[in-house]
């Protein structure tokens, strides 16, 4: 009886230890992915700000991105390097008025394709320097 209890106790301890290791590994991976996601979203926002036409700016820096009417999707591999859609593990979706030049706001959302879950989302506003002539009224 004592031996059976010993085996049971030992099995529980081993299971708890292995679960802790697995949890630590998952947390570490998630932390790296989150950091990369923040940096990636920030970079996309910076690129949007670099030109008056954000869509053109993004497509010139990320030529493998896929553009549709209301969004641009940029694909990344497992190491967060831009890649084609077929080789991608993550995707960043850029939406908002910044694409259609309706307004200066946009949102970048980074998603893990294998898990199907959003890692990080960044709302941003761009501003561009205008010359005084832009604000002159009349003819």
């Amino acid at each position: 009886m004592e031996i059976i209890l010993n085996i049971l106790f030992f099995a529980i301890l081993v299971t708890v230890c292995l679960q802790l290791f697995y949890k630590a590994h998952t947390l570490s991976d998630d932390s790296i992915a989150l950091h990369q996601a923040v940096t990636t979203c920030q970079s996309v926002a910076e690129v949007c700000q670099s030109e008056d036409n954000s869509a053109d700016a993004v497509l010139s820096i990320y030529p493998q991105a896929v553009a549709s009417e209301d969004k641009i999707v940029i694909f990344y591999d497992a190491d967060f390097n831009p890649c084609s859609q077929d080789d991608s593990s993550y995707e960043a979706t850029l939406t908002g008025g910044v694409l259609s030049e309706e307004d200066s706001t946009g949102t970048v959302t980074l998603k893990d394709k294998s898990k199907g879950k959003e890692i990080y989302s960044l709302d941003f506003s761009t501003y561009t320097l205008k010359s005084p002539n832009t604000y002159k009224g009349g003819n």
Partner: protein
Amino acid sequence: MIQIRKNQDHKVDVIFILALLALFAAISFLVVSIGARQYHSIADQMSTNYETRTCTSYLEEKLSQNDSAGSVDLTTLSDAASPDNTVQALALTSTVNDESYVTYVYYYDGYIREILTQEGSQQALSAGQEIVQAKKLEVTRLKSGLLKLDVTSTEGKDSTIYANQNAQ
């Protein structure tokens, strides 16, 4: 006869206990070695993460701080002691009391370094303050205001960020 039977039972008990002890020892060793490997792997990942995070955050912060017309430039920095020894550097110019000072951010001898000098003066590359360990820092100007910064950590992990300068 009964004595022999008892002796055999006793032997089986001892062997079973010893086998169980060996199994416990083997599993304990396995769990400890998995834990050690896991700890090592997480420590490496944290170190790489720290290097890239510190480096990218530092560069972004420096560029944001110096986002004024003409204050950010890419240049080649040469060593005061041996002028043939050159590195690519990010030059951030600021004016204090009508004097121009330049902060150079560059990679030299395993570290991203920063040095503040009076404009035009030359310093030894090794004199720069060590910011963080890295394997490479490469800065490219893509458009008038957009900079591409490639950082490689000591573990060899590449990280690319884009930084836009609004003031041009």
